[in-house]
């Protein structure tokens, strides 16, 4: 029987030395969903994404599209259809915007040129600012533009599941809104998204479901549409989020 979830973790845990920073985590992401993972600094959100992307050793089961990816190297995940927009964007600063986008398509075979071109056009349509800056050195872009480039570069992988780590970090409110607006559009077009975010209102405004993390474990799965649970979250875990 085909696995209903695109991504599923069962008892996924990770340690740095003897310190268990990720206690056994069970999450699932169904195709087409927008999932938010919330929590304060140090909750283990980034570690969870790194464990999913096989960037750090972990224990437990991890399935992507019904297939175990526990022993899959990071570089092979792009080929399967999963990629990450890392924290602080991590664009290739000395390279041009165009080169960054071209590298997003590295894992796709040369025969797929028409599909790559179509994705390139779709990225420029989603982020028109990038189309005016294709020859510009990526490191000279503003923070918001760099985040657009990081998302655009990940879209060039042609993922089925897009993971994002704190996409609003260090961005002006307007730039954050633009990025999340684009993520909403992508999700409406059918892209499955898992976003780690501290700014809960932004993420919850788009999320179908949410997980709240604290000290390396999932402590709640609030309904994003439930205002009462949002207020409780704000009060308990996220500080001043308004």
């Amino acid at each position, binding site marked *: 029987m085909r696995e209903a979830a695109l991504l599923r973790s069962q008892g996924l845990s990770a340690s740095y030395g003897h310190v268990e920073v990720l206690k056994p985590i069970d999450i699932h992401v169904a195709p087409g969903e927008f999932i938010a993972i919330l929590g304060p600094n140090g909750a283990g959100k980034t570690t969870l994404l790194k464990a999913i992307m096989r*960037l750090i050793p972990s224990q437990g089961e991890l399935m992507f599209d019904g297939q175990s990816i526990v022993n899959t190297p990071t570089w092979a995940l792009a080929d399967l259809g999963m990629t990450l927009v*890392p924290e602080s964007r991590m664009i*290739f600063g000395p390279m041009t915007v165009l080169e960054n986008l071209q*590298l997003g398509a590295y894992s796709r075979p040369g025969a797929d040129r028409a599909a790559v071109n179509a994705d390139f056009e779709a990225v420029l349509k989603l982020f028109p600012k990038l189309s005016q800056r294709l020859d510009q050195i990526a490191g000279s872009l503003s923070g918001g533009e760099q985040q657009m480039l990081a998302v655009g570069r990940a879209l060039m992988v042609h993922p089925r599941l897009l993971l994002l780590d704190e996409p609003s970090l260090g961005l002006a409110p307007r730039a954050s809104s633009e990025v999340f607006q684009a993520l909403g559009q992508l999700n409406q077009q059918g892209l499955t998204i898992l976003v780690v975010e501290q700014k809960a209102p932004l993420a919850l405004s788009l999320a179908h479901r949410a997980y709240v993390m604290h000290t390396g474990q999932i402590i709640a799965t609030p309904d994003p549409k439930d205002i009462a649970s949002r207020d409780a979250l704000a009060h308990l875990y996220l500080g001043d989020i308004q």
Partner: protein
Amino acid sequence: MYNASTLLQFLIGGISVGCIYGLVGVGFSVLYNASGIINFAQGGFVMLGGMVTYVLYSLVGLPLIAAMIAAIAFVALLGLVIEWTIIKPLRQRSASVFIMILATLACQILIENAALHLIDDKPHSLPYFTPGPPLQYAGIAIGLQTLWIIGVSLLIVFLLGLFYSRTQFGRAMRACAINPEVASILGMRVERMVASGFLLSAALGAIGGILITPTQYTAFFVGVPFTVSGFVAAIIGGLGNPLGAFIGGIVLGVLQSAGAVFIDAGYKNVVAFGVLLCVLFLRPQGFFKSLVE
């Protein structure tokens, strides 16, 4: 006093040897771009390029062109073997870059001693690629091998520029040096890029060694001076920028030549490395921007 043609003659000599320093410097930059590692065995590849060609041509009896191609392939393969057997295991053990640099220095010594024991301790040369007298123009004599050195070096630097800017593999090599974690997230196999960097830089070193041997000589001990000169070239040009490293090599070659002309041949390195110290004080990042920083 020196007349213009004498000075020009020394200038051409400086450019010629500077092209070789430049090629060695390009080798440093290529590997640095792929892995962030500085390979102090680079001069060993230069020495082996000349020595292996000598063995295959003079002792085995292969035609010169076949001996050169085989020597380049052998040295490139050796670069790959060093990566597989020494660098890759160190990376897997999360060794620091300093440890890996020290390991490359050990490789330099191993290569040097292997050449001493497996070949011999005598200097050897190769015939000019194109036999014939030097070209004479306005009182200046330009050896045909000098034209080969300058022409092949320029061609290599031009092709490398295209490789890094126009090919997806070249761009990926740069991306892996900038941020290997992100590169792997996007589907790039970082270890394959590092191996390719070793292969390419070793081949560049071998080409440099083959080009220079007919005008000088090669011997088991010539590697270290080339390592030093190539490293200086890469630093002057800005580590991580192959074109900068090549220009840095020419600057170094011309400075050595100037030192030999205006002071004394024995002072050529004093002038060259004095200038290097000035560069380090005034512009430690070199004169050209790195492709990966």
